């Protein structure tokens, strides 16, 4: 896939933060040499999964042009995000890339009616001149998520259920007719009986509205359910990426294997497997500073080389794995 034909092209992006005091500090690589591409012609749901502190939200901030990468670049529809300087360009970018966040009760101010946000978005992004023109646009977006303007009119956030308000925030993101939606943990605050409604909504948007979705989550089960491809992150690195069935049905990286195995299965028949004892790192924070593979401290297959230099990205069995174990298979 060439960079110019891609909807989104993430090219060796690294983000480092300075931590500690001005004199005696260090650098923390929150995102480390991450690359991937989304195709413009074929909408897909791309999952970025990882535990807390794996760098997935930092990566999301880069993709939303909220944070500039320390190294590398991000191209959206062929344009480098670093060249977006003017307000007009920024608005144009925001029109095409829309976010959905984790906690809808934080997204919406409790003192404002939720419809105000929807009307404002419609007017801001030039889809309507005034509220009267905006009403059908807002209603259309709400209908896509299974609500209607009449249901939402005059309501404050606390008057809607968690599932409803999260659907409103997806509807808000749809108003500017974006090409890409970036959803950061959109269902982790939503109750089980309502969660699948939101998850299915993203599938519907991909299939019917041709919108690509970047789905950031720690929940591998929903990631498996909705996404086409997945990237597993660990301490800033993408350790394994590829089609979701390949990566999660048969993980190759030892970390993906541990992660996949640790997801509790909702059946009472696999208890033995899950109860197998695991070692927990006591000082997880230290893994960031580790030289070489970040997983070397916990990996059952660790070799000397893992502790010396970063493992290469190896193409094996239709996915990319950042691990020395598969170096021979690739040749």
């Amino acid at each position: 896939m060439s960079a110019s034909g891609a909807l989104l092209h993430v090219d060796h992006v690294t983000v480092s933060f300075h931590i500690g005091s001005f004199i005696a500090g260090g650098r923390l690589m929150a995102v480390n040499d991450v690359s991937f591409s989304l195709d413009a012609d074929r909408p897909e749901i791309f999952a970025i999964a990882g535990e807390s502190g794996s760098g997935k939200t930092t990566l999301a901030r880069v993709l939303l042009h909220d944070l500039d990468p320390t190294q590398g670049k991000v191209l959206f529809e062929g344009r480098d995000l670093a060249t977006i300087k003017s307000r007009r360009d920024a608005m144009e970018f925001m029109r095409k890339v829309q976010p959905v966040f984790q906690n809808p009760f934080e997204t919406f101010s409790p003192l404002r009616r939720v419809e105000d946000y929807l009307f404002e978005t419609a007017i801001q992004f030039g889809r309507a001149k005034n509220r009267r023109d905006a009403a059908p646009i807002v209603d259309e977006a709400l209908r896509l998520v299974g609500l209607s303007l009449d249901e939402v009119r005059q309501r404050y956030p606390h008057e809607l259920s968690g599932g409803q308000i999260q659907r409103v925030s997806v509807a808000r993101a749809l108003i500017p007719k974006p090409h890409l939606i970036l959803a950061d943990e959109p269902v982790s605050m939503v109750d089980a009986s309502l969660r699948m409604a939101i998850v299915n909504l993203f599938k519907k948007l991909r299939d019917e509205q041709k919108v690509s979705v970047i789905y950031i989550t720690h929940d591998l089960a929903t990631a498996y359910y909705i996404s086409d491809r997945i990237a597993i992150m660990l301490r800033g690195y993408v350790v394994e990426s590829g089609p979701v069935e390949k990566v999660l049905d048969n993980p190759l990286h030892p970390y993906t294997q541990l992660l996949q195995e640790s997801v509790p299965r909702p059946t009472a028949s696999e208890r033995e497997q899950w109860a197998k004892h695991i070692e927990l790192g006591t000082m997880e924070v230290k893994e960031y500073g580790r030289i070489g593979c970040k997983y070397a401290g916990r990996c059952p297959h660790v070799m000397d080389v893992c502790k010396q230099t970063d493992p290469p990205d190896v193409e094996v069995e239709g996915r990319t794995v950042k691990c020395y174990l598969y170096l021979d298979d690739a040749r």
Partner: protein
Amino acid sequence: MPLLQIEDLRAYYRTEVYGISRSVRAVDGVSMELYNNEIYGIAGESSCGKTTLIKVISGTLKPPLRVESGRVHYDFGAFEVDMLTIDPEELRQTVRWKEISYVMQGSMSVLNPVRKIIRTFEDIVRTHQGIPNKKLFLEQTQEHVRRLGLPPDVLNLYPHQLSGGMRQRVAIALATVFHPSLIIADEPTTALDVVVQRGVLQMLKDIQAESQNTVLLVTHDLAVHANVADRVGIMYAGRIVEEAPTQIIFNAPRHPYTEHLIRSLPTIGDKSVKASLGGAPPNLANPPSGCRFHPRCPLAMDRCRTETPEMITLSHHHRVACHLVTEAEA
């Protein structure tokens, strides 16, 4: 004798503002039993009353929460306690933390951020038992922590120096200092990553297996119950709608709500389309008439709108409150 017997418990939040009284019926007619040596899981969505139920059975209720009727009776072997009539001072001295302890979500609220972990242990032991010999206390605490598989060094650290998983394991260590008969764990792993969650729950299971006490595990995550609990109770809108051994709940649920919950869970290796339930959980200030699930139930009949289904007991300690099941069994 069961460890805990709850009979037709009703606990409402009653408020009166400017002459307008309002009651939220958070727990409305719950009957259940907890036995010695088991892990009982309570599952339910937010605002289904699970936290209120815990407040009542742990004796930590405060106004506006009031118990309207019912009975909460403990049998600790050596003595019995009626939770609704016990004197607060006696509760503190004989029951709390010694017989019933508590692990909650985000243990930052148990651990004092400006004191080392060992000081928190000291506070708890001093309050409930007293520390006549400080050296012995130190040794015993170190031994206790080591036995649970934690490095004794954690005792000299401050809470912020520990990772989330480690803090939660320290909270479990704190909850087990007196080897209580009942450990109530309210969403103990909700904010944790899957790998850490697995480690913390394994520790809780090990402790239970070793000391043969009872763990009441409350979480909305059914997959956790499937792997940890011996029996599971499903709560909906202030009531327990179904209760059975874990195998039965997951393999042969009878209540439409349970069935839906289990069927809609995504799992790795399964890409089939999962449907979502329409509607939203009811407002407990004004719950639906009859069976509280009827507005969302795909199988609702006329009877469900007016008549509250009784809890009936099927074989294998399987209890369910649903008119469909009652009619099928009759």
